[in-house]
Structure formats: C-alpha cells, structure tokens
C-alpha cells in the first residue's frame, strides 16, 4: 500500500535573478513498511524534499499525497493535525524540549492532540521501552548523551503510532558507536514492526540499513533503487556528504 506519494514536485526559493530551484520535478512513491534513505550532496534538495513530504513546506508545484490525502487541499492546521497523528519526525539535532523530561517529551504530541490519561502513558512507556530508554524517563535532555537524546526523539516519533517516520540526518550529531546503535534501532523498527521510514542521510554506512535508496542531485532524482545497488553505484560516482 502506498503511504506517501510525490508527483512531479518542484520547489523554488526567491524570485527574479535570485530564484533558486531546490527541486525540479521529483516523483516517488513510498510503500508501507519500506525503509527509504534519501542521499545527495549538499544543496541537492534532499532536506527540502523531506520537509515537503512532511507537509512542513508546500511545493511550488506538484502533488504530495499522504495516505491518499493531497496535502495541498487541506489548510495549515489540518496539515498539523495530520502530522501529529500520522507522521513521526526525527531531527539531526534531536529538538527535544530542554525543560521537559524524557517521558514528557514523548507524551507531548499526544497531549497536544488532546489525548490524556492511561492510554497516553501506556503508549509513551511502550515507545520508551522500545528504544530502551524507560529507565531514563525522568531525566531532562541535558542529563542525557546525544545518542540517548536521539532515542528519546525516536520514541516521541513512534509513540503516536505514525504511518511513516521522517528522519532528517538522525545520526548527524552522533559519534560512530551511537550512530550504529541508532541505525540498528531504525532497521529493527522496520523489520520487526513494519514501520515505514524515510531517512535523509549523507552517511553511506547509515544508508546501508535502508532497503531502498534515492539519490538526488541538483533537485532531480538521480537514482532510485535497492540500497545495495544504488550505494554501489553512488560510491563509484563519489556521492558523499554534504
């Protein structure tokens, strides 16, 4: 089943001579249970694509369908509600609220959705256990390591039971050991729970855990295929980090 679909999406910034085309007609489908890595050099448009997939930004043209709903046809607040119920976000810099405990951070999207009581607690507990952070639930982010903070961020994304998780450089701020642990965790979510994940990364090692890799260059999809195939090719092409 197609969870997310982009059809001929373009995105431009600025106007006149200063106009920059970040995406120049991107089309792709994300199926349920897929683990997709988006790779590309700096300025290629991969992060822009992720924000458009999440409805954070609107495309200049083209269509984005989340579970069949065209994001352009609903207003800003509806998009927000859709995000908090169906999309999980993971950021490179974790973006936990520093003044909330780990558990409070995880519960926050559900509480903002008006949910209260035992079910919320139950889901938060489950998510924390899933990322093996239940024992750190009462800690503030400042008392956690980078890897631990990212685990909490993943728990926050998972707690709502999202249709798809969008991860923007989830290992970008971590050392290699933590990076491996987070990559393994994401892979485990897909393989054991059937979670759909789209991840932007510049790290080929991290991308290896994905089953499908899309590479972008100059706002266009360059390669889209099985991770092993694409990575092999892109390694030859020298696609590295941004």
């Amino acid at each position, binding site marked *: 089943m197609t969870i997310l679909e982009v059809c001929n999406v373009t995105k431009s910034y600025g106007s006149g001579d200063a106009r920059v085309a970040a995406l120049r007609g991107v089309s792709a489908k994300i199926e349920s249970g897929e683990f997709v890595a988006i790779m590309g050099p700096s300025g290629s448009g991969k992060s822009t694509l992720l*924000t458009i997939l*999440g409805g*954070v*930004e609107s495309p200049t043209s083209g269509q984005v369908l989340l579970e069949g709903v065209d994001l352009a046809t609903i207003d*800003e*607040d509806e998009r*927000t*509600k859709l*995000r*908090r119920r169906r999309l999980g*976000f993971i*950021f490179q*810099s974790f*973006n936990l*609220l*520093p*003044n*909330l405990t780990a558990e409070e951070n995880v519960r*926050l*999207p559900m*509480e*903002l*959705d*008006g949910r209260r009581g035992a079910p919320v607690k139950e889901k938060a507990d489950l998510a924390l256990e899933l990322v093996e952070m239940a024992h750190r639930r009462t800690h503030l982010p400042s008392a956690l390591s980078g890897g631990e903070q990212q685990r909490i961020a993943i728990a*926050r*994304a998972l707690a709502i039971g999202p249709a798809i998780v969008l991860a923007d450089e989830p290992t970008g701020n971590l050392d290699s050991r933590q990076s491996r642990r987070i990559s393994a965790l994401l892979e485990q979510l897909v393989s054991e729970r059937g979670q759909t994940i789209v991840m932007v990364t510049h790290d080929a090692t991290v991308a290896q855990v994905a089953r499908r890799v899309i590479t972008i260059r100059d706002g266009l999809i360059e390669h889209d295929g099985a991770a092993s195939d694409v990575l092999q090719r892109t390694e030859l092409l020298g696609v590295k980090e941004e």
Partner: protein
Amino acid sequence: MSLAKFSLREARSRPGRIVLTFLSIAIGVGAVVAVLLATTTSRTAQREMLKAVSGKADLELVSDTPNGFPYDVVSMIREASGVKLAAPVLNRVAVLFVGEKRARAQVFGIDPRIDQQVRDYEFVAGRMPEKYDEMLLDDSFAQSLQVQVDDPVKVLARGGIQEFRVVGIVRPSGTAIALGSAAYLVLPSAQSVFKAAGNIDQIQIVVSDDTEASQVKQNLQSVLPEGVTLRAPRTSSDMTQETMFATENGLRMAIAFAILIAIFIIYNTFQMAVGERRKQLGILRAVGATRGQVQWMILREALWISIVGSVAGCLLGVWGANYLNQVTELLMNVKLPGTQLTPLPFVVAVAVGIAVSLLGALAPARRASRVDPLEAMRAIEVQHNDEVIRRATPLGFVLIPAGFGLLWFSAHDYLPIGADIVAIVGILLGCVLLIPVLLSSVSQALATGMERFMGVESRLAQKQLTQHVGRTTLTVGVLFIAMSTSAGMAGNVLDNVRNVTDWYSRAILGDFFVRASMPDLATGASADLPEGTGDALAKIDGIQSMDPMRFVSAQSGESSVLVVVRDFVGDPEKLFDLVEGTGAATVAGLRAGKAVVGSVLAERLNIGIGDTIPLETADGTVQLDVAATANDYMAGGLTIYLTRDVAGKLLNVSGVDAYVIQAESGKLKHVEDELQRYCQANGLLLQSYADLVKVIDDMINGVIASLWMLLALGCLIATLGLVNTLTMNILEQTREIGMLRVVAMTRGQVRRMIFAQATLLGLIGLIPGAIAGVFVAYAISLSAQSVLGHAIAFHFRPGLVLGCLAVGIVVVMLSSLIPAERAARLQLSAALHYE
C-alpha cells in the same frame, strides 16, 4: 566593516526590539522633562511675579499688617544715608470688569514718576498713568481681557466700583515671563479704591552705587517704626511652595517609579539582545575583536538609542508639561505663562535617560565581552542572566527589612521628605529579587490550575518561564512594580481626595458665599468686598447667620502664613476638620483669644494644643495659645484661624473678603433670589454651597487627572516592557516553536502557549503587585504626616485592587497578541534551523 556599522545593521535587522527600547527611554525621559518643566514654569511664574513687585530693589520694607503703614515712612527712608530711591507701593487684590468679563487682579498703587526706576517693564502701547482715573495694564492680562488703550475698565474693591481708562500697556523686560494679572494705578487713586487713605503696603528701596544693602539695612533698622519689616526682596512664596509641595512630591514619586521600571526594561532588553547575539559575538571575538571592543560596541548601541530616545522624550515632555501646567492653572486658580523652556530640565532628563540606558546596558555589555570565541564554533544554548539574578537574590533579604526600617524612620520624621520614596522603592526591589525563590513552585501551581482551561500549552509555558529564571524575574518584576505603584498611587490619590472632601465638607459650611473674587488658594489673596456689603446683606429677610471671613497674609516665625479671620458662628462641631481638639473647646478657645493652627504649620513648628505659636504684629511678636489643630488645604495648610476681635487687635484687620451665609429653614430660595439680585447689582460673586463644591471638585479632578495620566504612563511603560520580553521570549524559542509546530502544534495551540506564558507572567507579577499596591498606598499615607502635618486616612479598596488587577490582566493579554501571532506564523523550515 567597523563594529559601529555592524551594530547599525544589527539594529536594522531587529527593528521591533529597537523601537520598544526606544519607546521605553522616550517615555521615561518624557516623564522627567514634563514634570521638571511644569514645576519650573510654576516656580518661575511665582518668582517673576515677586520680582516684578520688588523689581530692581535691593531692599523692601513691608507691612506686618494687612492695612499697611503710613506714607510718611517713605520720606524717612528717602532721608536715610545710602538710599538712592524709595518707591512706595500699595499692593492689593481687586476685581476688574471689562464688559461682561470679570477677573481677579493684583492692583498696584505706584508713584508713576519713579516707578520705572525700580521695576523693569517696557511699554507696548500708551504711557504711564498720571491722573486719578487712569490705569496701566500688564500686556498678557490686557490680551486675555481683550483690552486696548483708551478702553474703560471697572475696578471693584473695598471702596465700591470705580471706572478707569487704560492709558498704557506694559510688558516686563529683562525676563521672558509675563507678569500675569496686574494693573497699576497712581497711588492716591489706589488708596481711594481700597479705602487706604495715607497708607502704603511696601517701599521698594534702591541703595546708592557705593553702598552695601546690608549697611543701609543696618542704618534703617534703628529708625523704623513698629509694624514694618525690612528685608531683602523675596523671590519665592512659602505658601505657594507649600501648596505645590504635595503635588510635586506625588509627581516625584511617579517619576521615581517610572525610572525604576525603565531601568528594568532597558536592562532586560540589552540582556536579551546580548543573549540572542551570543554566537555573533563569539564570531567577533574569534576573528579578533577584543573584550573592550565588544563591550564598547554594546555600550555604544545603548548610547545611540538613548540619545535618540531622549530627544524624542524631550518633545514628549514639552507636550506633557503643557498638560501639567493646565492642571496647575486649575489647581492654583491662576494664569500661568506658556511652558518655560529652560535648558535645565532637558539637560537633567537627557542625562537621566542616557545614564539609565548605560546603567541598564553595562552588565550585559560586560557579559558580552566575556563571550568565549569557541562559542562561535558550535551550536550554543542561549545564555541568560540567571546567574546575575540568583546572585542578587540574597540582597532581597537585606533590602526588604532595610526598606521597612527606613520607612519607619521616615514616617516618624527622623528622615527628610523623600526618604519614604527610597524606602518603598527598596522594598519593592527586594520583593523582585526574591521572585526566583518562589517562581518554580508558584508557576507550577498556577500552570496546573490553568491546564484545565488551556491544556498542555500552559505546562509548556510554565516550563519555558522557569527555564529562564533571570528573564522571567525581570519581566515579572516590571509587572510587579508597575502594578504595585499604580495600585498604590491610585489608592493614595483616592485617599487624598477623600481627605480633601472630608475637609471641605467640614470646614466650608454655609448655604451661600458672597465674595468679590475667588481667593488664590495658594496665598488666600482675594479682593475686598465693598464697605456696606455686610449691612446690606443683613437686611435680607430669611438669613439665619452671616459669618464674615477675611484672609490676611502674616508672618509666624520664619513661615509666611495665612490668617483666616472669622466670627465662627454656627455648630462648633462643623467649623473645622480637627486633627487635635474638640469643636466646643476649640470655639471657646478662639473666643478666649487662642488660635487654631493648620496641620502643616503645626507639624512644621511641632506644636499642638497647649503650645503657643508666634505671630508677627505691629507691636512685635505675640505668642498665641493653640486651641486646636485642623486639617487644612488652604495656603498649603500654613494657616492660623483667629476671631475677628483678636485679629483686629493684633493685626489691625478690617474689611471682609467673603460672607458665609446660612439661610433660615424654608427660606433658602428666597434668600438665594435676594442675594442674586444684590450681587448682580453690585458686581459680586454669589456661590451656593453646591457651586463651591463644584469649583473645588473641578480643581481636585484636575489634579487627579494629572496623576491618572502618570499612572497610565506607568502602564504604558510596563506594556512596552512586556511586549519586549514576550517578543524576545519568542525569538529565543524560535527553534523550539518550530519543532513543536512540525511535530504536533497547530497555530492556535502556539498562540495559546504564548497567551499562557503571558498569563502566568501576569498572574505571578500582578497579584502580588496588587497586594503590594495596598501596602504602597498605606506607606504613602503614613509619610503624608511629614508633608501635610496629618496622616491621610488609609482605606482598603477591594474594588480598586480588583480593577487594577483586571486592567493589568487585559494589558498583559493585549501585550501578548503581537508576539503570539508572530510565533504562530513562524516559517517552520527556517525556524528549525534558527540559532
């Protein structure tokens, strides 16, 4: 690029913050300029009026009694060694009629041949009066009456109504100020009008060029008759200053609070600006800027904005001064010249504005200079002034008891007036410094309560506020001080109004008042009623009692006082608003030759029942027994009440300024009609009790309006501070808000979170502020003892407290509108990458 250019570009990129800081400074400076200009204008007006009377004189001889002294003294003075010139003056108050217009005027009887040698004025038109029926008018007075040379003017005084012809119009020279309501007659003519044949009130003396005034004074002292005083010309009137004192003290208090709030806002603004730019500052340090350069850059920014803000504040202040002058005119029942734009108020206000700004920016600038260059290389948490505030917290435990101690000493007259303001400011400041101690638990409790109505947003808001203790403390502090001072001063204004109302409802009793002119509240000066008025009024059927009143300026020790002479008929319990004594004993004491003393004068001389008070008379100093002390607002409370018999003997008082008339029951309308007919025929003023109450109420309302305006100013400053802080809050939370918007929050929820922040700030600052306001009102009422001579009765007004609280909450809510909208409309992708 120079650091100055860097600052300029920074300012351009944050116009909102710059505008808010600019407005804070402009309003603070404006308040200082307005009050200083207004007080300077009224004081200059008094000084110039007195200067116009004394002119170029080196010495003046003045009468100790209201009836003056014989003209013969002039010859004696002229013959004395070292005297170059001696100009006689009769100086009385009369009513002038021009067509339908009437005005109270200071009428001078002068010797036209020599007067210009002692008084500076230039002719605008015409010439000096030479004949009996000729008059000279002051230019501004002539303009206000629309009188020109050759126009007729009638003068109503003790000798009845007489008509004069204006032959000249003069303007004082050597000074920018108009004399005001002055008219000049030849001396014999004035003596006739005022029934003062052969008498004068003053002699202006110019000494020879080669002689010292002190030497001449010494020469003359031995030959002077009784009943006169030789002195250097006065440049100020004690009584006028006393009348203005309470109002000016209130204004000073308002300024002190406005400046305190302005310091908070400016400090907070710069503190946040530095926090927000920490990364940029780190880059500057990394690329070679020294600590000194960074510190100076921040201070220079403060200097620029304070200069621009101060200039705008000066303009604002001129407008405010005009308003305050109008209020003063109403209060003092005088015509003031236009606002005196002397440089001093501007210099003082600009200096205050710049000093406050630099003071506010100093600590942030020092912090900026200590930014580690390494901070430019990594993502950083915005730093706050939490440490500074936490370090200052113990000071709160010192300031509060110290403030209470100071207040106690001030209320008991051990400290000069003004110490009470310092004490109150100290206590409030101490309370602000203790905010961090209670912030977490109080905000937690409030947020829990609010969660039911505002959802999880209130909890998020609470967490945000407690995360930045320093910034939150300062914002709550601004609200706390604005609310406590506003509610406190508002309560005190109402207490004062009640006190004045109590006074006039007790001290001014009568069905009707007949007078020639309204008295000057500052000096009591009023035009005499024509002789025979009393006899004519006594014939009116239905008058139960008539109490003739006379207001006489006199000297008691070092103080100029107003002696109020009455017959004190009617219910003894209703004649005075007594501070000490009982009605019956007071009237009995008065009849036995004792005096009732105004509370301010009693406080000044530290006297009460059983003590004596000195009064200068023609026969030297007389010690009068004090029968009672009474609350009094006339002449600033520097009053002595005497019976007509006693005043006649001691001060040779004759004549009447006003009759207080009680009508027989059931004949009120008849008496009013008869009095109306008589007064119209004779050019007199008839006022009913209701009329008089309205006049006084109008004056009081004028004062209240000016104080409300100052309170509104305080609210405005607090609003600016709050908008500033909330906007800064949002800037600092940009990334967090961006994340919240991405993962879960609708725009409405973001708005609600910012409203929740504002509500929490408001509740934490405003509720204790309103409670502290009750204390401030009480503390000010205590310190009124040293200003007014009696404590202003303090009244707790729950309605006022709740009203102030409601206004405060509304202000807080409105202040959060723009920041909330700004937060709701953040560009999400940009916000996620905001640093």
